């Protein structure tokens, strides 16, 4: 068991108005699952994802990560979990523009306190695993969108996290490059990784083994991919 969510809600207060981004979500995710989260815009997908990734804490409800209650954790503990247990892949890649691929991939290892030699070695392996062994000294603006997203995936995986979280990882890529990224995810899943992908494209969601559909902050359906 990796993740258990019970009755989680998230409120945003905008002046007098209160927005219910999540209204009571229950979810269990086990090791080596491949999950797609779908739903219309504004349904709370990203909010749920940020919660799962310990970037955000629930307004109410319970979130256990590997059996520990996240709501009770202080900021540094959350940072620790994000560093060791979670790999993030963003729609906009979020690479450091002035650093080359190698240094971008090394970042989580710096925050883990590893020595430069170990960092370099592990970052090289991670870049090779995403097929970028020959691009390690390229800066983000010297790479294609697909390559950038591969660097981001290498960065997400370099510290051997329990789960990989990807919020619209193909949103900024053309459909062919998107398929390449999804093929990479497929490989990772087969190697035993736990993967959660947010998307609103049915084609992308079909790669997963299980689909959770959100609507207005509630889970509408949850089941295996047909």
């Amino acid at each position, binding site marked *: 068991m990796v993740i258990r969510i019970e009755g989680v809600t998230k409120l945003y207060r905008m002046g007098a108005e209160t927005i219910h981004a999540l209204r009571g979500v229950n979810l269990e995710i086990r090791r080596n699952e491949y999950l797609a989260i779908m739903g219309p815009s504004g349904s709370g997908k990203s909010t749920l994802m*940020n919660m799962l*990734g310990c*970037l*955000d804490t629930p307004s109410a409800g319970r979130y256990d990560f590997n059996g520990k209650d996240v709501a009770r954790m202080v*900021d*540094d503990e959350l*940072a*620790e979990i*994000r*560093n*060791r247990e979670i790999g*993030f892949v*963003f729609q906009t890649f*979020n690479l*450091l523009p*002035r650093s080359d691929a190698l240094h971008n991939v090394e*970042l*989580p290892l*710096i*925050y*883990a*306190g*590893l*020595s*430069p030699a170990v960092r370099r070695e592990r970052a090289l392996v991670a870049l090779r695993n995403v097929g970028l062994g020959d691009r390690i000294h390229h800066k983000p603006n010297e790479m294609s969108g697909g390559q950038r997203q591969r660097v981001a995936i290498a*960065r997400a995986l370099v*510290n051997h996290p329990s789960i990989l979280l990807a919020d619209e990882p193909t949103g900024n890529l053309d459909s062919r490059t998107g398929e390449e990224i999804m093929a990479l995810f497929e490989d990772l899943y087969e190697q035993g990784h736990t993967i959660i992908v947010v998307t609103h494209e049915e084609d992308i969601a079909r790669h997963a083994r299980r689909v959770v559909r959100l609507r207005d902050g509630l889970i509408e359906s949850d089941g295996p991919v047909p």
Partner: protein
Amino acid sequence: MARLLQELVESFRIAFGQIRANALRSVLTALGVIIGIVAVTLMGTAINGIDIGFNRSLAMLGEDVLYVQRWPWRRVDDWWNYVNRPPLEVETAERLNRVIEATPESLLEVAVPVATRGTSVRAGELRLGGVMLFGTTGDYARIVTTDVAEGRMFNDVEASVGRPVCVLGSTVAENLFPGRSALDQQVQIRGERYTVIGILAKQGEFLGLFSFDNQIVAPLNAVRRQAGGRANLELRVKVRDKTRLAAAEEELSGAMRRVRGQLPGERDNFSINQQQAFKEQLDPIKAGIALAGLFITGLSLFVGAIGIMNITFVSVKERTKEIGTRKALGARRRTILLQFLIEAVSICLIGGLVGLGVTLAASLALGALLPALPIAFSPGLMAVSVLVSIVTGVVSGFAPAWGASRLDPVVALRYE
């Protein structure tokens, strides 16, 4: 611990990358700090230089010599209290020496009468004006700080009979006898012939005002005979232990009052002067320089600090999304705080080092132009500058860095 180290290295890396990428902006921001550091180091250098130059000059007066004179070495507003003081005589010195000898464990060693007058001097066709003529006894050698470089000082017998012999300061000797030794030559002082028996070692200028090498020392009785008693006489008293100058001055004052037969309650009819009096006159000048320097330093550092605070706020704003990304990858609050603090401190340090370089170059140039000026660029000043730069960086960078460290990662990631 390892983690903190890696984070620090990464922070410096980011800071220097950031400064390089925004070189002009960083330099302009650091300008305030540069000016501040230049001001504080120049001030320190000036004060140090004044001190060194002054002490060097004062040492020529003798650190262990008290001067008994009619007038004090300071401005007086009540001149009428001084004009009628009795002049100092040779007998005053003799009687003073008897008192000193009779005092057990006296702090004083010897009192030497010295007559001073300005004069001109001739040797053959060459004539030199504005020379100080000191008429004194054989004890003079015991109180002066200069050595006799060539020849000898006159002895007690020559002094008491007033033999016309003299010892020349090095400037006098060089000017009157260029290219040859002055020893055993004749000079004419106010029409009377003196034989040169010694030449003093070079001493240098006193505060750049007058040269100690522009002097002639001759037996007191010879000088007095010539001057018809009009030479101005003073007593120079050597102190045994220069660390107890104040106590020695007190003893001397009591001894002088006994010699003069002054009654208790009566005001001293003499003044005891010492080099310390000059030092005290210098203090307000030094304080003035320090005040001006500190004011300029404070002002420019304040302006610099505000500039750096502003630029750090801008930097945080520009990189909000990056902060979110770093937090998502496991950066703690401390990490982000350090990152921006180090960025601010780095700009300040660079400014401080540039400022130090400017001051160093300026003092070297000044030292080359005016070799007489004592320039003292001390390691202490460097340490102070580096410290001031770091403190400025921490103070000005703290608020924006703190704000950055507290950013909600979700909000930061959403920032466009």
